[in-house]
């Protein structure tokens, strides 16, 4: 999809509460959230661009565009992870950028995150990066709160082993 411009927002939204403001305020945090989930800046860029495009199209009907944006970003990340899983299964290739430039402890953290299932990874990132509650994560993953707790617990257990 093409580059999303803040100018695609409806007229009159150039103030801080409009689309321009949302774009300026949330693009960075959304990129950081997405890159933790998908593991690559390129994929994160695509996801966030698509999410802003979706917000732009629906701007007039959204009561809380910020919330819609975040939900769209997470759903976009899930789609990327799912596609990648299929690709990896067929090609046997690992996705993601070269990480040689990262400090060792971050490489290990990234590998530990990559080793989680899609749902575990999203739950872990949402809890420990975005400070999301069980309720919020459950809504995102369309599951019960107890399942969220289970996903986080098992995710932490797996990462603890990887990082030990």
């Amino acid at each position, binding site marked *: 999809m093409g580059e999303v411009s803040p100018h695609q927002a409806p007229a009159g939204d150039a103030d801080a509460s409009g689309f321009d403001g949302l774009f300026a305020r949330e693009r*960075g945090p959304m990129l950081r959230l997405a890159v933790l989930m998908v593991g690559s*800046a*390129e994929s994160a860029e695509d996801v966030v661009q698509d999410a802003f495009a979706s917000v732009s199209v629906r701007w007039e009907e959204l009561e*809380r565009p910020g*919330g819609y944006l975040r939900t769209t970003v997470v759903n976009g990340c899930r789609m990327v992870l799912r596609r990648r899983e299929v690709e990896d299964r067929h090609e046997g290739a690992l996705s993601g*950028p070269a990480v040689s430039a*990262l400090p060792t402890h971050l490489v290990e953290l990234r590998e530990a995150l990559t080793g989680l299932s899609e749902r575990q990874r999203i739950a872990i990132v949402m809890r420990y990066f*975005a*400070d999301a509650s069980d309720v919020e994560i459950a*809504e995102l993953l369309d599951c019960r709160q107890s399942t969220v707790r289970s996903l986080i617990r098992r995710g932490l257990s797996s990462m603890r082993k990887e990082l030990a």
Partner: protein
Amino acid sequence: MRIEEQLRRELPALADALLDTGTGAVAAPVASPGDVIEVEFELDPRPRTEEHTMTKTRWLLAGVAAAVILVIVGVVALNNDDEQGLDTVDTPEAPTATVAPTTTVGPATTVVPTTTPAPEVLEVAEQIRAYFDARAADLAAPVPDPDLSRFSGRAGGPMQQHQGAVQGLYEQGRAIRPGDQGPNDLRVGFVDVEGDGGVDVEASASAVACEVNYGVLYEVATGNVVNDDVATREFEILLVQVEGVWEVVFIEATEQWDGEAGCALSPTDYPL
């Protein structure tokens, strides 16, 4: 440092590092590593994906639907000469597990099995085993039990769907017998018991279980083996307690691996 603290401290740094070492296309104003993203989710309208078809308030109904899909997939798989079915296997004998005695569970009791599991956790785990045993016994029996008496009190919604699977096997003249290592290896993991299960429900519980299925699908008349591949599956299971009896109301295979793999390699995560 605890893993939780490590994540809170290092995830922001990892995000920034990944963006810096990525495509270089990130020029947006990026928050500082210490910032916390405002979490505000708008759910309606929400973007729909193929996985976003359930809502919390309809989980029971959706659970039944998921169970239908699970069983249908199982029956289809059993029809396939090249693939292993989804269902469990067991000895021809009926399971002897009994329903655990009535226990009133306190409100919102989250129990993580560590060294000494709470009684209600053991009850739930026992009921899950009984469910798998009963289901496997039906599939293993050359002459399926049409009344599914083994399931009485053990499976609410999934029972009706399971009946279709049993009938399907019977009509094909097939059954599933234990493999060399037995019918299966079932381990129950995280169990979460909540006291308030809603109207007419005393308590509810969710759990995860890991099953290595050693079952052999075969033709009853000839004894010919159709499929003896080992498969591992992780299940998400929901139960409710009604009049003291735990019933499985939802079961779904969330992940699957060929051979003895995946969750089977993490026995400490499934201690029950």
